[in-house]
């Protein structure tokens, strides 16, 4: 069952190579929808109190002790749903507009979905690392082939605030940063399994390694090998150096899923691998991680309301949001971690429409710069309302699910130390600044020359409205996720809580 969820997108991507070019997009969309259907099927039979479910365990490379082992629990199910949902608008949005070399484009996009789902479902440490590494490959091609150089001599959007970015160097920077982390993680993962086996039978099963336990001294360095990979992926301050350039160069639909889902794999990794496997080290480095998280929140927010490129505003706001999520996880408290899971889903759901809206704005104004924009709401009330909902959710206005998520996280932080929570709550206020600034500067004010305020087209609306609808529905019943993930989150942090006491 879980295998079919993982491999369906890739199979449809390969089918897309065989059909005539103009059908490739719709084959891809069909694949994404079927994957979502399969994920909903799993959800229907899911028992929130049942621990790890739908377990698949097949020996893959017996010579190396690696198993093809999958499973789903209360944390991964929501991230799998987020993934399968997020890919549909990205594919449909590209399908409406058409792309160069469509068959290859959708193959890469769907291969990205396959590897991301694999990372969320893998229960074997090496399988997880493999999918984690694999994720970056299709996105390297997506960003590199379909991205474009920005801010060069001929670029009309050239502005003093944003230097020139070439696609090649941006993607190279991205993949080098990411792989620096994940190659160290590969060494760390192997070391963890070898040390835990202690001469016994070598296995990479996460549960077995957790049960066997690691000696405290080894935990300390293995912790950082894993943390490096996850923090780069998020990205968290100060390892976000690859983010601005690649965000500016990337094609927007691919960037939407990249920002929405791939960043969550890092946070998920902390919850799934680091806390249970290295509880002593997690406890030892709790303050360091919280400082990094708070820095991400403050730095991300500050950057988000000074940047004028819409992609960077969203990119840095993601840094801040991921800071919140990290803080929630490292509070070692049920409410904090549940809030973090909720916030992962919230952020993903909000970011996808946000990036697609950026693409529509740039179609209307010819630019992604905030400076010369404005007045787009004039003749486009529906478009404006959709964007307003997204902005409100981003700034976590009370009654939104994001508000509940951040509230839970802050609540968890209070249990550690009130000081952490107070500093972090500054980030909540800053979010209001940058989200409202983004909305106002694009939608309000007089319409400058050359901009075209036109209503959202029906096809685009069909793509965006369901996403926004899910955001609204989730605002009414966030407890679905809170309760659904409760048992899984508790078992993830149980060991580290034991140690922390």
């Amino acid at each position, binding site marked *: 069952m879980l295998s079919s969820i993982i491999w369906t997108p890739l199979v449809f991507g390969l089918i897309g190579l065989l059909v005539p070019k103009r059908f490739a997009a719709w084959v891809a969309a069909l694949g994404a929808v079927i994957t979502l259907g399969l994920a909903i099927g799993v959800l229907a039979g899911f028992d929130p109190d049942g621990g790890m479910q739908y377990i698949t365990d097949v020996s893959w490379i017996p010579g190396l002790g690696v198993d093809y082992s999958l499973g789903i629990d209360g944390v991964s199910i929501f991230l799998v749903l987020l993934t399968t949902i997020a890919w549909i608008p990205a594919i449909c949005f590209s399908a409406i507009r058409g792309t160069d070399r469509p068959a290859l484009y959708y193959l890469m996009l769907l291969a990205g979905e396959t590897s991301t789902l694999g990372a969320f479902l893998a229960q074997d440490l090496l399988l997880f690392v493999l999918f984690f590494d694999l994720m970056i490959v299709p996105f390297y091609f997506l960003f590199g082939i379909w991205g474009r150089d920005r801010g060069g001599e001929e670029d009309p959007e050239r502005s003093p605030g944003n230097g020139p970015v070439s696609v090649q160097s941006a993607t190279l920077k991205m993949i080098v940063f990411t792989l620096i982390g994940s190659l160290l993680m590969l060494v760390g993962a*192997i070391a963890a399994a070898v040390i835990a086996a202690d001469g016994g039978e070598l296995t990479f099963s996460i549960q077995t390694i957790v049960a066997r336990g690691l000696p405290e001294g080894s935990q300390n360095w293995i912790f950082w090998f894993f943390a490096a990979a996850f923090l780069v992926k998020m990205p968290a301050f100060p390892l976000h150096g690859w983010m601005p350039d690649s965000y500016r160069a990337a094609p927007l639909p691919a960037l939407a899923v990249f920002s929405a889902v791939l960043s969550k794999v890092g946070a998920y990794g902390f919850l799934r691998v680091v806390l249970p496997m290295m509880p002593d080290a997690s406890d030892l480095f709790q303050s360091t991680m919280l400082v990094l998280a708070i820095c991400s929140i403050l730095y991300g927010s500050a950057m988000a309301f000074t940047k004028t490129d819409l992609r960077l505003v969203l990119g840095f706001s993601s840094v801040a949001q991921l800071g919140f999520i990290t803080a929630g996880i490292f509070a070692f408290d049920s409410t904090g971690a549940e809030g973090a899971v909720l916030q992962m889903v919230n952020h993903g759901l909000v970011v996808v429409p946000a990036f697609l809206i950026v693409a529509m704005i740039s179609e209307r104004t010819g630019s992604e710069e905030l400076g010369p924009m404005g007045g787009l709401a004039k003749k486009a009330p529906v478009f404006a309302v959709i964007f307003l909902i997204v902005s409100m959710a981003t700034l976590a206005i009370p009654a939104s699910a994001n508000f509940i998520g951040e509230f839970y996280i802050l609540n968890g932080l209070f249990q550690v130390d009130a000081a952490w929570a107070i500093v972090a709550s500054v980030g909540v206020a800053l979010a209001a600044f940058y989200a409202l600034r983004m909305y106002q500067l694009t939608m309000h004010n007089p319409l400058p020359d050359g901009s075209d305020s036109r209503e959202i087209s029906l096809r685009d609306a069909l793509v965006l409205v369901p996403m926004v609808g899910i955001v609204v529905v989730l605002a009414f019943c966030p407890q679905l996720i809170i309760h659904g993930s409760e048992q899984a989150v508790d078992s993830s942090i149980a060991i580290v809580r034991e140690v922390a006491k």
Partner: protein
Amino acid sequence: MSFDAPTIDYAGLSPVIALTVGLVVIVLAAVFDSVRRFGPALALLTYAVTAGCLIWQWNANLDLVSGSLRIDGLAVTLSLLAVIAAAVAVLLAIGDPSETQAGRSDWLALLTGSLLGMVILAQATSMLTFFVGLELLSIPLYALCGTNLRRRESLESGLKYLIVGSVGSATLLYGLAMIYGASGATGFQAISDGLQAGDGMLSDSLTLVGVGMVAVGLAFKVSIAPFHQWTPDVYQGAPTPVTAFMAVATKAAAFAVFIRFFLVALGPLADQWDVMLAALAALSIVVGNVGALAQTSLKRMLGYSGVAQAGYMLAGIVTATQAGVDALVFYLAAYVAMNVAAFAVVVIRERQNGFSDDISTLRGLGREKPLLAWPLTIAMLALAGLPPTAGFIGKLYLIEALVDDDWTWLAVMIAIGTMISLGYYLRVVATLWMSPAGQAEAGAEIDTASLPPQIAGAQADPFEDSRADRRWYLVAPALIATAAALFFGVIPQPLVDFAQHAGDALSVWIS
């Protein structure tokens, strides 16, 4: 006094016999005009028979010719890799200027002779066969490097390889002599016994200098830094089919004897040489990867990358465990697949481009000729160790073996080397897919001065072939190797079994 001739196990010797017979036939075929055309077919037939004999002897585990050769899992697996590489070289050389100018039969005879040396080397268990095999491998290769008679670089590379290779052989020979002096034996097992029996021989400076010199000599052959300086020049200058053969097959054969000599003959000294080899491996990883960053010639880049890859493989010997040998053989097999894919594409592009292997000639290939771009892309991703390729599993295997034996720092070195390597492997991928065709960067233009004179003139190069990307004998190796690199990345177990078959052969000596 009667003299007993050693019993000869002809079944065990069959791969060597098959190659020798084939070699004679190929040389004789040169005399008859009507048969000469079928040289490549004869060579391929010879290799197929040899491979058949090797597979027939798959489970053999016995000493041959009074213990101077030994056919076992290690010999069979690594000989097979060398035979595959030779067969690919024969295909890639069809229509190549080097093969035509040097005379087809002569060229093929040299190649087959070198392969015979490799097969002997992979089985060598005595210092005599070790050295004979090594020279039989090397001398035809020196000549092969210079077979593109009209290119100065080719002749230069042959000469350079000859001189540097001779220095390496001489160093090795001195080392072997010293070890003979310390142990009083030439057989590998007897050396091990002799070293342990002799009083204080394990820490004797004569022994250790000998070990060091053997290591240096072998490091020359597998291009381990700091003995790698010849590699980029020779790789670039030699005809590309020869480079492909040299890069892959020499490594397979030389690593076979490296493993056997160090783990069997010098096994008692493992605590002395493991640190030395670890340092060489680490240095090689750094020097190879950093050196490759600045290259604009694809063949030079692959030369430096080969230095780094040799460093990764050497790490497998450092552990002195079966897992390490398994990992090395696995990596070597994966390396064959990825290098064959890369070099086949280089050969095709060279024939279409007036024999330039500059990276900028690859611009826009992804859009124009995806069938050429994909093999090179997959080869680069595999060399960089990205999933889902055999390169990733190979690195995984090596790191697992290293960490298991407490060489975590060397495992981290491999990880760091891999990060550096992304810089140049991905540059090739980016050139293939992310730059528009025909938009050469300033300074990256093809250096016309280094090309044969007829390129500059009006006359076309007779060896240029604009339809090279449709020739099955050039495209098939690229596609098959690519498929193998992907297949063993997704389903690695068959290759793991293959590698473990090599490691099992040494189970008597190492754990």
